[in-house]
């Protein structure tokens, strides 16, 4: 059941991205281009998603188990640190360059076009590089 609900959530998420126009990088860049001819659509996507999300998270806050009986795994970190800000800035530069963020890139893979594939492959490599660096740094700290 967990697997089916995860599959369904991923599927609806992806269809939402297509319906909203967010699988089109030129539309995303149209939103990020404040100085040009500005397309506010992405703001409406976030607004629509957050309106539904606010209700869901309010409901979830009153529960300590999910509907399938698992513990709720919500983030517990509250501190605002350098990682959060630098990570966000780094992501934003890449997002602005290509017009892809992780969701739309994955939801575009099956289109058969090569560009989302190139982006997604580089993104996975970036994630692996991050993982390796984290392990190296953790090992370095232990050694000291």
């Amino acid at each position, binding site marked *: 059941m967990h697997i089916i609900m995860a599959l369904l959530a991923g599927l609806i998420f992806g269809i939402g991205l297509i319906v909203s126009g967010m699988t089109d990088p030129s539309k995303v860049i149209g939103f990020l281009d404040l100085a040009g001819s500005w397309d506010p659509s992405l703001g409406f996507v976030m607004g629509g998603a957050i309106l539904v999300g606010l209700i869901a998270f309010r409901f979830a806050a009153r529960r300590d188990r999910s509907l399938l009986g*698992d513990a709720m795994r919500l983030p517990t970190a509250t501190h605002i640190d350098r990682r959060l800000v630098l990570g966000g800035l780094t992501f934003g530069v890449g997002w602005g360059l290509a017009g892809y963020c992780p969701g739309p890139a994955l939801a575009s893979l099956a289109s058969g076009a090569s560009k989302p594939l190139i982006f997604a492959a580089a993104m996975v490599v970036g994630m692996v590089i991050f993982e390796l660096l984290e392990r190296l740094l953790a090992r370095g700290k232990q050694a000291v």
Partner: protein
Amino acid sequence: MTIDLANFTPWASLAGGALIGLAAAIFLLFNGRIAGISGILGGLLKWPKGDIAWRSAFLLGLIGAPAAYGLFAPLPAVQVEAGTVTLLAAGLLVGIGTRYGSGCTSGHGVCGLSRRSSRSLVATAAFMTAGFVTVFIVRHLIG
């Protein structure tokens, strides 16, 4: 600033956004987890035992979405302006940045703001600002 009325799609974007919110709600209420794409994918790369199945299932659904959508309507046309080198650089930055900052547009932007997390508000402000500045430089200063 001028509004690009030719490309502005308020209703489709609002409806698509609501579907994204619905997906996040299903994942939260049934699976008890945050629908953050970079976290789900990045976590899979660690190959955690017991976690592989639901992560793969979510990503499979996401990747399969165009096929499901295509059963009902033709996929919308997309335009990727970036060339190969830019796509490679952008992909690396997005991969490293989303893992370093613990989230992307879905995890921080949608789920984080929905649960009114101040961390996610800061992260969203950071990636939005960087996105605005990057497009300004690429389109108006260099281009």
